[in-house]
C-alpha cells in the first residue's frame, strides 16, 4: 500500500458537483474519467486491459501511484476483475473499473449480479465492436446487454459528460434508496481518445469517503449486525420459502433504479436534455450520436427547418415520461445510433403511443463514423424536402 498522500480536502458532494468553481481544460475522454476518479476518493480500482478502455485504467493506475487511489491491481481477466469489485464493495470500499466490448461481455455474469447484490460502484464502459468480425472501433451494441440487469446506465455524449457522470455516479450509486451500480458508457475512441473542453472543479477537493453503514444492506465486514448473514441474491434454502421473495427482490432492484431519477435530475440536470422543445421533427439520440444529432439540429435550423433534439443521458432509468411529453406533437422522430439493432429506437417506440412516427436510423456500426449528412437525409425526408443526391468520393 502506498504512503503517498496528495493534498486533498473532503468537501460536500453538493459543492463539488454543483457549486465549486470550474476551470476549463482540453482533455481526452480517458483523461476525463481519470479526473473524475482523482476527485472521487476511490479506495480500489481493478483493471484488465482491453482497447479502447486501457488508457483510462493506465491513468487510474497513475493516480494509485500518486496516492489518489488506495489500492489498484491488474486482474486475471474481466470476470475476475468484476468479481473482485463485488468483493471490495461488499467489504465497504468505493471501487471503480472499466472495460470495453468483449471485455464487458466476459465480465457480464459478474456485472449483472451487482444490482441484485446491492453493490454500489461505477463501471466505465468504452464501447467497441463485440461481435465477429472483430474490430476495436466504436459500436455501442454492448449497452443493450446492460439494459435488463437493473443497473443505472448513463450514456455520455462527450468528455464533459464523462467527467460529470462518473463523479456524480459514485454519489448517486451510494444513495441509500438507490445503492445499485452505475455504468458510465461512452463511445470508445470518438470520446475516449479525442479531446474536448471539460470544466473541472479544483483537484485539491474530493468526495467524502464511502460510508458503508449508511446503506440499505450491511457491508460484510464483521462490524455491523447481523452476524448471521448471507444477504446475496441466491436466497438460500428453507423449507417454507415461496418464490415471492425472489420476485419482490427483483422489484426492489427496479424500484431502486426508479428512485435514482430524482438524483440524476439533481446532480445531472435531468434524464434528458431538450433543444428546441417546440419542434415539428425531433432527433432522439444518446452518446456520440447525440453530438452528431446536435450538429444536425443546428444545420436544420440554419436551413429553416423546425427540428429539435432530445439527448437521452440516462438509458436506465429510461426517461419514458419526459420523452412522451416532448414528442407529444412531433410528426417524425429520427433516432440515429451507433449499432445495428437500434436499441434506442426500440426504447423510444415503446414509450410513445404513436410509434409509427419513429424513423429507424440512421444507424452506423462496425466502427463507422456517423456523418451529420446521414441524419440530414432523414430530416429532409421527414419534411418532404427533395435534395439532389451528391456523389461522395
Amino acid at each position, binding site marked *: 500500500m502506498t504512503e503517498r498522500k496528495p493534498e486533498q480536502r473532503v468537501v460536500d458532494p453538493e459543492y463539488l458537483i454543483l457549486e465549486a468553481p470550474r476551470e476549463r481544460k482540453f482533455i481526452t475522454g480517458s483523461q476525463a474519467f481519470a479526473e473524475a476518479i482523482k476527485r472521487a476518493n476511490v479506495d480500489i480500482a481493478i483493471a484488465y486491459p482491453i482497447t479502447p478502455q486501457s488508457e483510462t485504467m493506465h491513468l487510474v493506475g497513475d493516480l494509485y501511484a500518486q496516492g489518489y487511489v488506495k489500492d489498484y491491481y491488474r486482474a486475471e481477466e474481466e470476470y475476475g476483475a468484476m468479481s473482485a469489485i463485488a468483493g471490495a464493495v461488499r467489504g465497504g470500499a468505493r471501487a471503480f473499473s472499466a472495460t470495453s466490448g468483449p471485455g464487458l461481455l466476459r465480465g457480464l455474469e459478474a456485472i449483472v449480479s451487482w444490482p441484485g447484490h*446491492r453493490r454500489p460502484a461505477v463501471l466505465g464502459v468504452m464501447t467497441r465492436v463485440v461481435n465477429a468480425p472483430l474490430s476495436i472501433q466504436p459500436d455501442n451494441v454492448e449497452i443493450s446487454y446492460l439494459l435488463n440487469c437493473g443497473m443505472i446506465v448513463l450514456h455520455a455524449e462527450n468528455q464533459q459528460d464523462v467527467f460529470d457522470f462518473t463523479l456524480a455516479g459514485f454519489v448517486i450509486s451510494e444513495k*441509500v*434508496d438507490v*445503492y445499485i451500480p452505475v455504468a458510465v458508457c461512452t463511445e470508445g475512441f470518438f470520446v475516449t481518445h479525442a479531446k474536448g473542453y471539460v470544466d473541472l472543479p479544483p483537484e485539491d477537493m474530493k468526495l467524502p469517503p464511502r460510508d458503508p453503514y*449508511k*446503506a*440499505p*444492506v*450491511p457491508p460484510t465486514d464483521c*462490524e*455491523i*449486525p*447481523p*452476524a*448471521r*448473514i*448471507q*444477504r446475496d441474491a441466491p*436466497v*438460500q*434454502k*428453507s*423449507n*417454507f*420459502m*415461496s418464490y*415471492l*421473495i425472489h*420476485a*419482490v*427482490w427483483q*422489484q*426492489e432492484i*427496479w*424500484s431502486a433504479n*426508479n*428512485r435514482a431519477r*430524482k438524483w440524476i435530475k439533481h446532480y445531472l440536470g435531468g434524464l434528458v436534455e431538450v433543444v428546441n422543445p417546440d419542434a415539428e421533427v425531433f432527433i432522439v439520440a444518446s452518446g456520440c450520436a447525440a453530438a452528431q444529432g446536435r450538429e444536425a439540429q443546428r444545420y436544420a435550423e440554419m436551413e429553416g427547418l423546425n427540428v429539435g433534439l432530445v439527448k437521452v443521458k440516462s438509458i436506465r432509468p429510461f426517461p419514458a415520461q419526459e420523452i412522451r411529453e416532448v414528442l407529444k406533437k412531433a410528426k417524425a422522430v429520427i433516432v440515429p445510433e451507433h449499432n445495428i439493432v437500434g436499441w434506442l429506437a426500440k426504447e423510444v417506440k415503446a414509450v410513445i403511443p404513436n410509434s409509427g412516427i419513429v424513423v429507424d436510423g440512421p444507424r452506423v456500426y462496425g466502427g463507422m463514423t456517423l456523418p451529420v449528412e446521414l441524419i440530414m437525409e432523414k430530416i429532409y425526408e421527414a419534411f418532404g424536402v427533395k435534395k439532389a443526391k451528391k456523389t461522395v468520393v
Partner: protein
Amino acid sequence: MEEGKLITPGPAGYKPEPAAFLGVDLPPPGKALLYGEIVDEEVAMREAAKAMLTRRNPTIFPGPLVLWGWNASAMEKAKAVLELAAEIPNCRIIPMPDYRPKYPKIDPEAEINPNHPNLTIIHNKIEACIFVGVHCHYANLSLRMIRAGTNCFTIALCAEMGHEDAMVSLRDVHAEEIRKFKDVLVQVRKELGIEWTPKPPPENPSLPKEEWTTVSPLDFGEYAALLIPRRGEVVEETE
C-alpha cells in the same frame, strides 16, 4: 381515511406492483408517507398510533440494528423501542435477528424472517405492526410481501429515507423520534379512551432447548464416533 388511497392494508394479491412503480415517492426530510401520500409527520404518526391501538395483535418487529448492541445509539434506540412497546396495549415483540433464510424452518411465534414474513404475521394473526432497525432492503422485501398476502397494517420507523410499501413510513427515525411517536401514541390512546397501564410485552416464547453446560458428546449417539476417537485409537499430532 384510507379509502381511495394507493397503499392500504392487503391482501393486495398474488404479486402486486411495488409502490415505487405506482408512482409513490419517498418523502423529503421532515415529512412522512401515509397510504402512499406525502403528509406531515404528525398526521402520519397519529394514523399509525391509531392502527397500533385499535387493530388486532399489534406487534413490533425489531431488526438487527436495534436487537444487537453494536453501538451506543443502537442500544439507546433499543431502549426507546421497549418504552414504546410498553405503552401499546397487549403489544408483542417478535424479533428479526438476521436476514438469512433458516433451515429447516423458523418458529413463527419466536421470530420473523424477511424471506417469508407472512408466516409470522398469519400465524399470529397480526393486523398492525412496526418495523424498526431493519436494513431498508430487507424491510422493503418484507413490507411488499406483507401487503401482498396479509391484511396487516404496516408501519416503518426508518432511520434513512423511508419505505413506499408501508402504510405509514416515517424517516430519519432514531431514539428521540421513537419517543416522540410514543408521546403521540399515548395522546391518541387517551383520546380514544383506552385504559392501559404501561407494562413490558411478554417474553419470547421459544423454549429452552439444550442446556449447553451439561450436554455430553455421548448425547450424539451413533454420530459420537465421528467426534470422539474410538477406544484404543491413538490421536497423533499433525506432524
